[in-house]
């Protein structure tokens, strides 16, 4: 039996993730300092882990409602209203998911008919284009530029809008660039979305991690947007809860109902222990989030200055925990740079094109790694750059 011909075409044709290739090389090496990690280095705060243990002790081990624990949805509703200035009904407009990843998949599957175009800015998170393809949509990337600090401009968006455009995906603060959007630019984008009747999926997983006093603005809170937006958020980054796999969607009831149909048959409900832990995070997690945020900010300052001192242009991002320095001045491609750095200096970073072709000439370095490790990594990168230029 030739199994390969039985693989569905739209799955078989999706390329392997560039990150996975790289991961396998890194795995085979020892003593590597990794700036390639897309999750916090902090353990989940103890009080949250303790709440998960307590949940198990009480025997909370059954299914929950498809939408998630009512108490958790209530707290999510209050949290979103407080931090993002937009309110959702916990009974019909909020659904707890297995991370934001599931939320993106649900939203795309609930919205896309074959041939619908989905716009997204690039470089972007690795799952966007494949998720669109898996739901039979057509991915339409909008390249963002270093000159614009990797923000999405309304002007560039408008150029890519066609009669087939249905959905716009946003991710600010952005993985891999750390870029954020100003209120002014978001307002222009919002007007375009209303004008062209686009639905917006906004992945705001990094929204608590903003720096230099920057205030995060959600597009869902802008005029005319709540009714056409799926707001996606979760606990992974701000609360250092990646392995708990808890996210949520907030969207008008009709859309939530549609996404819930996919969710209830594919997943049933998110993990119950993790939902209990998430309640604790929302109730008592603010102080720890702030202290982690402060620590990230210091590391960001350090790493940005270090790259610029090396003559590798690196804009100072206002969010997430990534920097996206430009390495093309070394004469190497992103992949050559990353592989060389790994082989000669045992420092791992991710080549920019793993996040889309417009990432060529850049690398992504995560500063979700202890300051001491970052220091050593930057010393080794300095040596590597000097040896390359020689």
């Amino acid at each position, binding site marked *: 039996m030739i199994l390969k011909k039985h693989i569905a075409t739209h799955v078989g044709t999706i390329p392997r993730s560039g990150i996975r290739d790289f991961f396998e090389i890194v795995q085979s090496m020892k003593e590597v300092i990794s700036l390639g990690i897309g999750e916090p*280095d902090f353990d989940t705060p103890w009080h949250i882990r303790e709440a998960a243990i307590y949940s198990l002790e009480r025997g909370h081990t059954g299914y929950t409602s498809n939408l998630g624990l009512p108490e958790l949805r209530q707290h999510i509703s209050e949290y979103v209203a407080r931090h993002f200035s937009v309110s959702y009904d916990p009974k019909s407009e909020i659904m707890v998911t297995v991370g934001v990843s599931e939320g993106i998949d649900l939203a795309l599957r609930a919205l896309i008919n074959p041939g619908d175009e989905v716009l997204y800015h690039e470089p972007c998170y690795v799952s966007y284009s494949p998720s669109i393809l898996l739901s039979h949509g057509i991915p339409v990337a909008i390249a963002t530029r270093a000159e614009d600090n990797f923000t999405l401009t309304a002007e560039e968006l408008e150029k890519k809008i066609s009669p087939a455009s249905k959905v716009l995906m946003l991710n600010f603060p952005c993985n891999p660039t750390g870029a954020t959007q100003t209120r002014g630019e978001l307002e222009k984008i919002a007007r375009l979305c209303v004008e062209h009747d686009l639905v917006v999926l906004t992945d705001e997983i990094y929204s608590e991690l903003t720096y230099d006093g920057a205030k995060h603005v959600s597009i869902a809170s802008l005029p005319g947007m709540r009714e056409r937006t799926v707001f996606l958020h979760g606990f992974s980054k701000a609360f250092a809860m990646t392995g708990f796999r808890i996210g949520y969607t907030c969207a008008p009831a009709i859309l939530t109902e549609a996404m819930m149909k996919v969710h209830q048959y594919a997943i049933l409900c998110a993990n119950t222990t993790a939902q209990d832990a998430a309640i604790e995070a929302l109730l008592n997690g603010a102080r720890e989030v702030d202290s982690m945020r*402060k620590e990230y900010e*210091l590391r960001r300052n350090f790493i940005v200055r270090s790259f610029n001192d090396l003559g590798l242009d690196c804009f100072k991002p206002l969010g997430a925990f990534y920097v996206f320095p430009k390495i093309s001045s070394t004469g190497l491609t992103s992949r050559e740079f990353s592989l060389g750095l790994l082989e000669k200096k045992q420092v791992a970073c991710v080549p920019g094109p793993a996040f889309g072709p417009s990432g060529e000439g850049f690398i992504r370095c995560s500063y979700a790694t202890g300051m001491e490790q970052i220091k050593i990594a930057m010393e080794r990168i300095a040596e590597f750059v000097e040896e390359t230029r020689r």
Partner: protein
Amino acid sequence: MELLISLLRQNARAPIADLAKALDRTEDEVAAQIKQLEREGVILGYQVVVDPDQSEERAVTACIEVSITPERGGGFDRLATRIARFSEVKSCYLMSGGYDLLVIVQGDTLQDVASFISEKLSTIKGVISTATRFRLKAYKENGVALYREETSQRLAVSP
């Protein structure tokens, strides 16, 4: 200033150049801020954090709950200061609750500590009673965990 102190709390030996990068200031600015904090007495000193169970000092540590008689005019201050002056006393705090002073004492042997309490501390006029508890094992010292955590299981590269 608050961030500078938090960085120094993590590592008081961090080079000025590293502190300056993390705070996004010049080295001169950071050096001046540290001088100022020292001058103002906000920073009192820089000490090493030692795992007491691993060091060869073999010190014995005791927490002593001390009840004292407050004095007219000075309250607890004069007596507390007097107790704090002993070199055996590592820390001395005025407490709320069932007793007045919490005195943390360190000595080479159990006898050293015992004789400090019976001969020096208890005999001070105004000290009403003492209750002594010896330290058996340390789990965390000055914010540094002494138990060995498993190393992180994070994937080396992830999206």
